[in-house]
């Protein structure tokens, strides 16, 4: 009996090990690259370790910090614009009758249904004509079209999870529609809206294709820098940049996990 269980551990351990390697292998590789001074084929591990590339990335002449700032400014503006659209849209959708609602929610998915590349090429052409190409606003607009689907879907779910009775209770004892929204609906939907903001923020931070066609070379976001460094064979710079991108992602994932409650999640897309 014991022997059989022991035998079964062998393939299991193999599969688990393989899985761990698939998940953590590239990450480990990335981490190694950030501290590698010298590393070339056929060596399994870096030949020299050090932080000189970190100095280069964070030096005043290195453009990583500038790119990080650009990325954060773009992401924050994207969040503000996307939420400014998603809060009223989500509220209206959450209070609409069902068949209509699914249809409109589905419409927000349409931009995602097409291949990104031709869409962004066309946007870039159009933005070029109206002078938006190479501007922060142009990049923000592209990110908003991309992030709006998350923002609207999650905001709709967040507002749907606020019982209409709660709002009507405020109305019945003297609150106008805006006041009831501000005092009751908005605070109760806030966790869901925060989650939606974080999704949009992360999407914007990671977005590459749109930024490349609309922003480059004037607006240099972090993923663009990563691309330039990576394609130039400068793996250390690319890895350090990737690590910078990873930090907000992981931090916000933890926050999202805490705020996006099951009762909100269950209403996404309904």
């Amino acid at each position: 009996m014991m022997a059989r269980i022991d035998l079964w551990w062998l393939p299991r351990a193999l599969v688990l090990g393989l899985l761990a390697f698939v998940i953590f292998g590239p990450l480990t590789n990335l981490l190694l690259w950030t501290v590698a001074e010298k590393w070339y084929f056929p060596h399994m591990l870096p030949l020299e370790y050090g932080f000189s590339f970190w100095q280069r990335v964070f030096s005043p002449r290195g453009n990583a910090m500038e790119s990080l700032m650009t990325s954060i400014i773009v992401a924050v503006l994207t969040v503000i614009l996307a939420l400014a659209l998603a809060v009223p849209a989500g509220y209206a959708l959450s209070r609409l009758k069902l068949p209509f609602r699914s249809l409109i929610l589905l419409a927000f998915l349409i931009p995602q249904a097409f291949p990104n590349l031709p869409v962004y090429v066309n946007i870039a052409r159009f933005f070029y004509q109206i002078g938006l190409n190479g501007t922060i606003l142009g990049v923000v607009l592209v990110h908003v079209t991309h992030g709006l689907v998350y923002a609207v879907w999650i905001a709709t779910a967040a507002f749907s999870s606020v019982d209409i009775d709660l709002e009507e209770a405020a109305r019945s004892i003297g609150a106008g529609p805006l006041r009831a929204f501000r005092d009751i609906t908005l605070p109760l939907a806030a966790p869901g809206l925060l989650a939606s903001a974080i999704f949009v923020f992360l999407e914007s931070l990671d977005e590459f294709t749109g930024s490349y066609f609309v922003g480059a070379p004037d607006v240099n976001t972090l993923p663009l820098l990563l691309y330039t460094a990576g394609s130039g064979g400068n793996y250390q710079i690319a890895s350090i940049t990737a690590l910078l991108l990873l930090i907000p992602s992981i931090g916000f994932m933890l926050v999202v996990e805490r705020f996006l409650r099951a009762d909100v999640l269950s209403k996404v897309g309904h």
Partner: protein
Amino acid sequence: MNDQAFLKVERMSVGYGSTTVLDNLDLAIHKGEFVALLGSSGCGKTTLLRTIAGFSKPFNGSIHVANRDVTQMPPDKRGMALVFQSYALWPHMTVAQNIGYGLKLQKRSKDVIDARVNEMQNLLGLGGLGARKPAQLSGGQRQRVALGRALAIDPEILLLDEPLSNLDARIRLTVRHEIRSLQKRLGITAIHVTHDREEAMVMADRIVIMNAGRIEQQGTPEEVYNKPASPFVAAFMGAENLLSMQARVNGDQIELAEGAFNPSTVTARSGRSLASGPVQLRFRAEAARLAGSRDTASAEPGSLELRGQIASVSYPGGHWRHAVRLGTDEILVDADTAFAEGETVKVRIPAQSLFIFNAPQGSAAAPAH
């Protein structure tokens, strides 16, 4: 309608889309009156309440409060307060914040709000719970917070949408009396929606019985109980025993024709509008009296005597309930002592407990609740 009425609903029709829930409804309520809207689910009582509150807009008709037309006013401008069936307490606010919110909207000073919130908490037995969140309260406490929140703004009209239906049966009985005595003490005009007959009876000055979007009857609890105006009201108020007979109206008297189980009986018409022909008889199990077949005590004048057989006996508490078979019909009759199964008995129904209606066209009797 009465010009003294405080709340006046006139020729009002309400519906959703193409369905009409309330059709041409009139209702007048006096200041300080406690009115219960009673009916089974789907009868339109909640729609009527929500329309009065301003959450549903009528197709046509009007609503006046103290001679002020409020038909097109939004809910927050009507000077009413609605207590929801779900209580609808705001989970992100404390008990004190919930109760004080209406006053905050009126831009009262903090001292005034604190004093009023305290007063409400003491009035409703919520002392010391001000800092709790609704999730930390029992059902009965939540119900009282919802009531306190509505009462704090001193509404002209208090609207109650089945506020007791989510409470335990035992708490419900005490809260009934609490709400009623509070309403009397504060002199508020109140409209209470319920499907519970007993609740309506013990709480209300006047009961408005609704069926299929219409008002079937309105009157004091005693009136609707003892003088139901339609078979529906009779059945809803507990007169569930149903017999069909032929009647002949003769001036002030009604003659019920002899049937297989009863001799011909003459009873007073007592103001009933009734035509000769097939009739429905309704009466309550507790209103009828049971006697052995050899009982020779002569029946009171005007009372109906039936002869049947005991089909089954049960003891629901306080008295014995007998199912008495009359051919294919079965009626329920209460008695203080048990009769044996299969025994032949006489059932006597006093004239004042006998509700007689013309049989409805197409027959199908009003469903019992």
